[in-house]
């Protein structure tokens, strides 16, 4: 190829844009974090302890059923199915607790620890972008969390030995767990991105997880308890509006709580045999078609996660004034 004067010019080599996987694999922070995390015995000890605890929970559930069942647990299909469900939800519940308590530990110090170690300035003067730094920290934390989740899948599969679990339930449970892991990791990184020390982001990340996972259900139950009398009174316009508001508010709160989402989705599936929607009839009248909470839960948590990550990138990108 020649230019306008006839002088030969070198053709630029067209390089393809790297794929998402290549960008992840080439992110220096991901490689560094994973190397450090998997070095030595720490990761394997943690994984072993986690699996021992999960196995102990399954063993306790089985022993409980075995001790309380009048017949041989294998001879009754109902008992087996109930056992399968209990094993499944116990392991899933344990994994959710694991995510709530390990995600903050992994991510709350992600950026603030770089400041404490005095390596943050070194990173910010390289060509590593704020986005690469934040994503690298997020992905390396999620990798370890997902390793723990996947390691417990064989325990979940034990539920199939006993029956009582549909494949949809497995997918939805795993989706809730993965989406929760992304969200709680993003929460930790968000706090870490604008605080200098690790202690404050850790406390805030744990507080956020506890409020969301446990505080919301407590709030729902307290509200139901306070307003339960309202539903006993005759059907009045005030009561109908109050009921509607409480129902909408309650449904919204359920869809931002992973425990509530899992339980209500299971109820919807059991009552309606559908994973997508259900009909709700309110005590004072009104019949509504509502979508199963796992769908809005997934959307809300992913959107919140994106917002938190974008804000984290903004804080990391900021130059000290």
């Amino acid at each position, binding site marked *: 190829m020649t230019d306008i004067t006839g002088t030969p010019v070198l053709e630029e080599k067209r390089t393809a844009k790297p794929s998402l996987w290549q960008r992840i694999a080439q992110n*220096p922070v991901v490689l560094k974090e994973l190397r450090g995390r998997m070095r030595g015995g720490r990761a394997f000890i943690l994984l072993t302890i986690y699996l021992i605890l999960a196995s102990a929970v399954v063993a306790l559930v089985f022993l409980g059923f075995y001790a309380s069942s009048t017949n041989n647990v294998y001879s009754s299909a109902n008992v087996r199915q109930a056992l399968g469900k209990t094993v499944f939800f116990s392991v899933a519940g344990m994994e959710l607790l694991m995510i709530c308590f390990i995600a903050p530990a992994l991510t709350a110090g992600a950026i603030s620890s770089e400041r404490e170690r005095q*390596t943050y300035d070194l990173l910010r003067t390289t060509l590593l972008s704020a986005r690469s730094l934040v994503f690298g920290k997020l992905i390396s934390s999620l990798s370890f969390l997902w390793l723990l989740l996947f390691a417990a899948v064989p325990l979940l599969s034990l539920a199939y030995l006993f029956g009582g679990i549909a494949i949809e339930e497995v997918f939805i449970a795993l989706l809730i767990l993965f989406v929760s892991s992304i969200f709680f990791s993003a929460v930790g990184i968000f706090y870490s991105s604008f605080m200098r020390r690790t202690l404050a982001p850790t406390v805030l990340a744990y507080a956020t997880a506890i409020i969301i996972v446990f505080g919301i259900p407590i709030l729902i139950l307290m509200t139901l308890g306070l307003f339960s009398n309202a539903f006993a009174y005759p059907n009045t316009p005030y009561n109908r509006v109050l009921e509607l508001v409480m129902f909408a508010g309650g449904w919204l709160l359920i869809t931002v709580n992973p425990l509530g989402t899992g339980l209500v989705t299971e109820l919807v599936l059991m009552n309606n045999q559908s994973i997508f929607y259900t009909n709700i009839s309110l005590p004072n009248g009104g019949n509504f078609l509502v979508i199963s909470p796992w769908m809005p839960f997934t959307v809300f948590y992913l959107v919140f996660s994106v917002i938190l990550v974008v804000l984290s990138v903004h804080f990391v990108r900021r130059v000290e004034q």
Partner: protein
Amino acid sequence: MSAIIEIKELTKYYGSRKAVANLDLTVEEGEIFGFVGPNGAGKTSTIRIMATLLQSSKGDILVAGNSVRTNPRGVRSAIGYMPDYFGVYNDMLVWEYLDFFAACYKIPPSARSGLINDLLELVDLGHRKDDPVEGLSRGMKQRLSIARTLIHDPQVLILDEPASGLDPRARVEIRGLMVQLSEMGKTIFFSTHILADVAEICNSVGIIEAGELVASGSLEELQKVLVPQQEIQLTLLSKGEEAEALLKAMPGVSEVQVLNGNNAEGRVRLTFGFSGDDSAISGILAALVGAGIPVLHFNSDTRDMEEVFMRATKGLVS
């Protein structure tokens, strides 16, 4: 040589406190520039602005033509920055440390291994390649840090107190490394309290106090301006009076004093002040010898960096 660092009307406020006040400075390509000042003078603030870690309140810095305000990424690719602390990653080996930063500078994996080996050889850490970083001595960590700043072959090295806290041997090693890097074509801008290092290796010096640049230029220029007169001591075997008369008649000579007159051995010790350059001093010696005066010792008090610094600064703190 062209200017590779241009600091233009740089001002930095922390609240109402002015840390850097209208700083104007130019560093030529290939120079070793020493940035000297007392604690709190504004050295680190200036350096952090130059390294794109801190925003200036007013003014700008251009590094290799890139503005820290409008093109910080261009500045980062042109500089290697070493702060006055060594950030440690736990559980990282020496080669992994350099490999990580090479990746941060987007150096392809295929090129990293050779580059890391070469850099470790340059800073004399090749034998510690597979050792944990946290196990290195302070001097070794400084050398590793310098290797890190070179990983992407920058034009300018910005070093904040590179010899701080080092033992004498380590300081000499760092100095030698800086001279070697300058000979390789790097421009080195470093801040320090150690005036001996500045005198030893710097082409140019900038003295900052209370946020203001009080003196800048080559060491010889500063010496001429700030310490215009130096004291020269003379020991003669004899002919003290002739020497005294000859010296008094020479231009630039002042305050000729005979210290001890003729002692038992006939030796005479004289001092005089002189404001001239090295070739003029050499001319005085030649004139004395040419007049048949037996000169035994001829010493000039070096107008050392300490004297320059003390004359330039007032002991103010910003």
